[in-house]
C-alpha cells in the first residue's frame, strides 16, 4: 500500500491512498482542521467528493476505523509493542480458564508467567491497575503487560490451554510493527 503526501499551500495537506484496482482515496486536510474525503476511480478520473468532517469528528471516525472502539477480528489478541521487548496484549478470558473466577493473586499470574495484568474490562466497567485481590471472570478482557516471552507464557497458561480452537494466534512480534492483528 502506498500513501502519497503533498502540500497544498494555503490550504493544507493532501494524502492519496491506493486502493484496489487503481482506485484512490484522497483525504484533503485543511489548515482549519476540516477533512474532505474524495474518491478517484482511477488515475485519470476526477475526484468525487464523498464527505467532509470537522477536526474532532475526523479523529473519532479515525479511531473507529483503527479498531480502538470496536475490534471485530481476534479480540483476544491485540498486542501493542512498546519498544524494546515490552508489549501490551488484550485477551478475553475464556470459559474454563484457570483465571476465570479467581483473583489475580490466587491465580498467581505474576509468579507463573512473569506478565502482569494492568487492567480488567468486564464489558460494563474497566478497572485500571487492579488490586491483586481483584476477581476475574470468564468473558472479561484482561490487559497484560510483559516481555514477549512472558506474554506468550500468559497466553499459553491462562488463555490457550483451556480452549482448543484458539489457535496459536501469535505474530512473531519482534519486528516492531506496532499493533498486530491476526
Amino acid at each position: 500500500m502506498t500513501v502519497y503526501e503533498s502540500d497544498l499551500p494555503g490550504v493544507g495537506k493532501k494524502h492519496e491512498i491506493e486502493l484496489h484496482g487503481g482506485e484512490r482515496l484522497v483525504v484533503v486536510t485543511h489548515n482549519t482542521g476540516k477533512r474532505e474525503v474524495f474518491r478517484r476511480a482511477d488515475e485519470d478520473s476526477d475526484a468525487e467528493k464523498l464527505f467532509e468532517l470537522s477536526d474532532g469528528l475526523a479523529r473519532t471516525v479515525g479511531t473507529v476505523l483503527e479498531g480502538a472502539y470496536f475490534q471485530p477480528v481476534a479480540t483476544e489478541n491485540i498486542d501493542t509493542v512498546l519498544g524494546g521487548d515490552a508489549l501490551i496484549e488484550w485477551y478475553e478470558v475464556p470459559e474454563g480458564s484457570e483465571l476465570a473466577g479467581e483473583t489475580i493473586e490466587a491465580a498467581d499470574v505474576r509468579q507463573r508467567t512473569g506478565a502482569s495484568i494492568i487492567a480488567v474490562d468486564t464489558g460494563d466497567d474497566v478497572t485500571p491497575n487492579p488490586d491483586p485481590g481483584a476477581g476475574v471472570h470468564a468473558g472479561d478482557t484482561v490487559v497484560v503487560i510483559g516481555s514477549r516471552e512472558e506474554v506468550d507464557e500468559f497466553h499459553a497458561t491462562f488463555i490457550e490451554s483451556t480452549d482448543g480452537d484458539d489457535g496459536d494466534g501469535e505474530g512473531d512480534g519482534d519486528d516492531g510493527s506496532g499493533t498486530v492483528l491476526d
Partner: protein
Amino acid sequence: MAAGSPVAGGDLHGLLALGTLLAVAALVAAAGRRVGIPTVPLYVLGGVLAGPHVAGAVGLPSIAPAEVLTLAEVGVVLLLFFLGLEFSLDRLIAARRKLSAAAAVDLLVNFPVGVVLGLAFGLGPIGAFLVGGIVYISSSAVITKSLVDLGWIADPEAEPVLGTLVAEDLVIAVYLALAVALVAGGSPVDALPRIAVALGFLIAVAAAAQLLAPRLAPYLGTSDEDLVVRTLAVALVVSGLALAVGASEAVAGFFVGVGVGATPLHDRVADRIAPLRDAFAVVFFAWVGLNTDPVAVAGVAAFVLAAAALSGPAKVISGSVGGWLYDLSPRRSLRTGLALVPRGEFSLIIAALAAASPDPTIARVIPAFAVGYVLVMSFAGTIAMSEASRIERLVGVAEE
C-alpha cells in the same frame, strides 16, 4: 479619479460614511452572489454606487474616498500580511525545480502580454509596467477558494496551480516594491535612488522577519487580546514606516506576515486576525469603487476587452505548459491553465498605486482599466472553471 470631485448631495462623514459604505457593498454582494459572481468585484461595485461619481452625481449623500482612506490602507496591509503568513520559503525551495519552470513560464508569457497592451494603448513604459502586473497576477485567495468549491483540490492539477500562485505571491511582493518607486514620478533613472531606499527598507524588514521574528514571537502575548493588538501594532507601524520612506506598505505587510508565519503563533494569529482582514479588505475594495467613475471605465472599454481577449488565453496557455511541466495529462494541464485565469484583489492594489501617480494619463486610465478588467475577468475566470469539461471537449483533450 482623485478625491475632491464635485459632490452635490453632501458628504457623509465618519461612522455614517463607513457604515453606509459597508452596507451598500454588502447589499450588492448579497444580490450578486445569487447569480454566482465572486464578491470582490461586487464590493467595488458597491463603492462605485456609494461614491461621488454615482450617488454624488445624482444628488444623493455620498462618501468621499478620503473619508475611509486609512481603513482601506489597513485592508491592503492585512491582505498582504496574510499572503506572507501563508508563505513559506522552505516550501518554495522544496518545490523549486518543477515550480521554477512553471512559474517562469507564467511570468515570461503573461507579464509581457500586459506590457505590450499597455504600450499599444499609449501608456508609456511605467504605465505598461503596471498593466503587465495587472494581467499577470492572479489572486491566491479567490482561486484557492474556487479549487476547494469545485473539488479540484483533490485532483493532480491542484499542485501546479497552488505552486504557481505561491510563486506569483513572491513576485508580486518584489513587483510592488519596484512599482511604488517607479510610479512616484519622473523617469526610471530618476527613480533609482527611490528604488534603492525602498528595496533597502524591504530587505531590512525581510531580514528582521527571518532573524528576529522567531525570537520576538513570545512577546506578542499569550492572551488573544494581546496577540491581536500587538500583531496589528507591529504590522501597522512597519507598513506606516514603509510608506514614509517611499516603500510599499503592502510589501512591508507581506514581510511582517512572513515573520509571524515562521513562528508557532501562525495558526492563532491567522484565526484571530482573519475577521479583521475580511472587514478591512471590503473597505479597501469599496474604496477603490469610490474612486471609480463608471464613465471612465466605459471610456476604456476597448482597452479592457482587448486585455481580456489576449491575457485570458495567454494564461490558459502558460498554465497548460506549467501543468505539462508537472507531468500532467493534456486534460489536467488545460485545467491548470483554466484555473489560473487572473482574478481578484491584487490588480486592484496596483490600481490604487496607479491612482497616486503624478502622470495624469496613468492616474486616470489605469485605475479605470483595472476595475473594468477585474469585473470582466472575474466572470471569465469563474466561467473558465465551471465550464471546464465543455472547454476540454472543445479543445479535444476530454476523456473518451
